[in-house]
């Protein structure tokens, strides 16, 4: 009987520990989720789920059309993505690609997918000013 009681007590302690551990993990996971900055304007050129899944395909297609054939439509142009998604905030400034609050890096940091678009391309609208003076790039 005593033997059984001891085992039940052990089991309860283990279950309790397990619940505590899972609770703390859940709260950590919530903290780790990317904070995606909101864009300027109402609606993106495609639905959010389509964009999340296919944005890389859209800009890959567009880059060939624009550079090699001279087609300069704005729908899937990287320049236009940046115009809306890294538009100046209330302070009139924008984030750098090396910072987490840049639209692209917010998700790419979370997903651990390194992009090299901004080694060459501008990571801000032409006229906008950076919020920090730190050097950009990776």
């Amino acid at each position: 009987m005593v033997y059984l009681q001891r085992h039940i007590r052990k089991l309860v302690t283990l279950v309790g520990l397990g619940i505590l551990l899972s609770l703390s993990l859940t709260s950590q996971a919530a903290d780790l989720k990317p904070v995606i900055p909101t864009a300027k304007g109402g609606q993106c050129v495609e639905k959010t789920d389509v964009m999340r899944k296919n944005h890389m395909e859209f800009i890959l297609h567009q880059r060939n059309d624009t550079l090699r054939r001279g087609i300069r439509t704005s729908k899937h142009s990287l320049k236009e993505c940046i115009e809306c998604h890294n538009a100046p905030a209330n302070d009139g400034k924008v984030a750098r690609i090396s910072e987490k609050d840049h639209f692209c890096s917010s998700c790419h940091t979370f997903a651990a997918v390194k992009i090299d678009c901004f080694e060459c391309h501008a990571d801000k609208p032409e006229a906008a000013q950076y919020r920090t003076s730190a050097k950009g790039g990776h």
Partner: protein
Amino acid sequence: MKQDTDMNRRRFLGQAAAAAGLAVAPGVMLYEVQARPAGEAATSKQRWGMLIDTTKCEVGCNDCVTACKTENGWGASETKSSTEQQAQWIRKVKLTDKQTGHVQSLPLMCQHCETPPCVDVCPTGASMKRADGIVLVDKHICIGCRYCMMACPYKARSFIHESLSGQKAHAPRGLGTVESCTLCVHRVDKDGTPACVESCNAKGHKAMYFGDLNDPNSEISKRLKEFGGQQIRADLGLNTGVRYQGL
């Protein structure tokens, strides 16, 4: 046959434009120049070219180079590179005849050849010529091997040796890729004129002309027909898009 169709289409468009023109005064018509729609690809109907009148190009004047730097964001951005490494999309060249002492000055940049050696040697297809004759580097697939730099007889291309930031939105450029004069393709696609030509004319030098070599009525074609124009290293048979007068 294709050529005929295109010529017919051009004649038709010409007539349509004349009909749409607005008479400002007797004999003076005001036409609205229509840029190619953004969704339409460049075609071989046009061949963009440049004409440089070296007799009007002053020794010591650097306005075209400055305008190019400002427009495309090269020059000041490469802080760690040596002078030899720094980008040079366009440069001024001074020619002195040792016998007579006659000095000439001219801007030299990518000559936008019809048969570009840089495109021939590129192992990835990054070095390319657009249908309208503009020679470009597709930096997305450039591996930075620099074969094109060696192949170019005009030394028109540069390689970027350092990480850059603050590039212009219309002129992406970055570490490990080759670059050169784009004939301001972003402006040309909006029916504009390259920054160098614009600056040369705005400052009153009028030594540079830009236009369509395929259109016999463009100013550049008329001038070439009347006065002729040399190619630099014409012996190579590259049929350059950039021509010089008074060399």
